[in-house]
């Protein structure tokens, strides 16, 4: 069995930054990614990112991915395994993975889980009809494979993902008929909402999908307005002739591996589902295991990167590799994280954190 110092599961922004910081500290790192390319969600993001310069704000997600993967390629301490899926974590700390039909067993001293999130679905009649996609799938089709998902789209969900994917669909020459959201207010950033609205796309808050219809695939969607108590208003039904419905109603952390590893988990609504309890050093109740990014609570790539650096530094230090400037960089990353979460947009993150954070001593 292969001995590894730090194993990182997931090559998104959190995993990439964890690898960079752990390797800079001097630890030998193995980075495992189930796809054939690194970057996670970043490689689908053709828009300029928010945040501050330290998290590459103003740079497009895809270009941030290139900056980080170049840094990984130049590090002697990082071994990358692409097309490799971590399957299980056992009680004795052994981890199994599958790569090109080969079953591999490793025993790392520390593991950083950075598996990201999966999309939530929405229940309505015929929601499994061809033409109904998650927003992530639509983005993968368009921005990775260069395939148009259809001609006329109804977007369900006015969070940042729904708004951004609508914009990208319009850029690809696809017609977005409307964006719906059940809540009374637009959840995503209003600058995104305004730039879509001024292209003539209506944003219908307090609306939801009643049903989908079509012969072999989606042809019509019926939507309905909701009252203050979120109940459908009779007679307010509207029909949209669309061949694509794109569902973007939130993400939930991909935390199965953490359940397996016996980490204490908690349902935290603000974080999108079950997340592990963690110390301020991002260590779970299983002392071998750290977390970073969306798996610990749905947030942003900017904070995922900062958490990745923090987890990488802390995990390396816990096995005797202290970054040459540990104090300075650790404080700096913590300040960045605090600043990102300080505003109104970070209200729910701070609320979630107060439920998921534990003291170092209890692990």
């Amino acid at each position, binding site marked *: 069995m292969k001995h590894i110092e730090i194993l990182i599961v997931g090559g998104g922004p959190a995993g990439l930054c964890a690898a960079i910081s752990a390797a800079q500290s001097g630890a030998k790192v193995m980075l495992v990614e189930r796809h054939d390319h690194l970057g996670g969600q970043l490689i689908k993001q053709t828009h300029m990112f928010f945040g501050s310069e330290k998290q590459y704000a103003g740079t497009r997600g895809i270009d941030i991915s290139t900056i980080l993967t170049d840094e990984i390629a130049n590090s002697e301490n990082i071994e990358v395994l692409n097309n490799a899926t971590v399957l299980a974590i056992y009680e004795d700390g052994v981890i199994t993975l599958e790569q090109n039909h080969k079953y591999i067993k490793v025993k790392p001293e520390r593991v950083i889980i950075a598996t990201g999130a999966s999309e939530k679905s929405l229940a309505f009649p015929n929601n499994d009809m061809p033409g109904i996609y998650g927003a992530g799938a639509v983005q993968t089709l368009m921005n990775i494979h260069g395939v148009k998902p259809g001609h006329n789209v109804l977007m369900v969900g006015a969070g940042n993902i729904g708004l951004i994917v609508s914009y990208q669909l319009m*850029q690809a020459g696809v017609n977005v008929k409307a964006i719906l959201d059940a809540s009374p207010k637009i959840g995503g950033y209003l*600058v995104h909402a305004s*730039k879509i609205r001024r292209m*003539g796309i209506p944003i219908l808050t307090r609306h939801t999908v009643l049903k989908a219809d079509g012969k072999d695939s989606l042809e019509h969607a019926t939507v309905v307005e909701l009252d203050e108590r979120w109940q459908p208003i009779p007679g307010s039904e509207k029909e949209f002739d669309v061949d694509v419905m794109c569902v973007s109603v939130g993400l939930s952390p991909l935390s199965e591996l953490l359940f397996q590893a016996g980490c204490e988990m908690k349902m935290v609504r603000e974080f999108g589902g079950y997340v592990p309890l963690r110390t301020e050093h991002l260590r779970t109740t299983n002392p071998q295991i750290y977390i970073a990014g969306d798996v610990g609570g749905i947030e942003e790539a900017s904070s995922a990167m900062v958490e990745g650096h923090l987890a990488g530094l802390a995990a390396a230090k816990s096995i005797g590799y202290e970054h040459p400037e540990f104090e300075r960089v650790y404080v700096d990353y913590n300040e960045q994280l605090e600043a*990102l979460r300080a*505003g109104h947009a970070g209200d729910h993150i701070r609320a979630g954190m107060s439920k998921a954070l534990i003291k170092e001593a209890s692990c």
Partner: protein
Amino acid sequence: MLETTGIPSLEQVNSSFPSMERLMQGPVAIVECFQRIPCNPCATSCKRGAIVPFEDINDLPNIKHETCNGCSLCVFNCPGLAIMVIDYTYSETEVTFKIPYEFIPLPSEGDFVQGLDREGQYLCDVKVLKVQNTKAMDRTPVITLAVDKAYLKTFRNIKVVK
């Protein structure tokens, strides 16, 4: 209104415009960013400090219109595409708008394209004066348009039909 439809109110639009006195002095940036979000490239890209450096990354942009010279750096650096530069002194009857535009086909100089308002509704045809798409703009081209002064507060977007 903005929070439920994405359309800023007239008061919000008015609040982001400089005084007529400043408009008469030439190009100036209009920043339409009304929500506290963790974002600051407008301030960090402005070399003149006209967008006052943020204390907190969630600050709303605070632009000193007297210090701004309309250089347009912020126009293509803002990820929210929330900024445009207008020159009220362009001619007796027309004002120019520099807006970010991330769609293909790009218009060509001399074309007439559809001018749209903040709801995406057609206002009038507008003339394309300039199309800038330099490396520094990093795939957010900036289009300069001549627009009738009557649409000063309503013009916001274009549609290119080729």
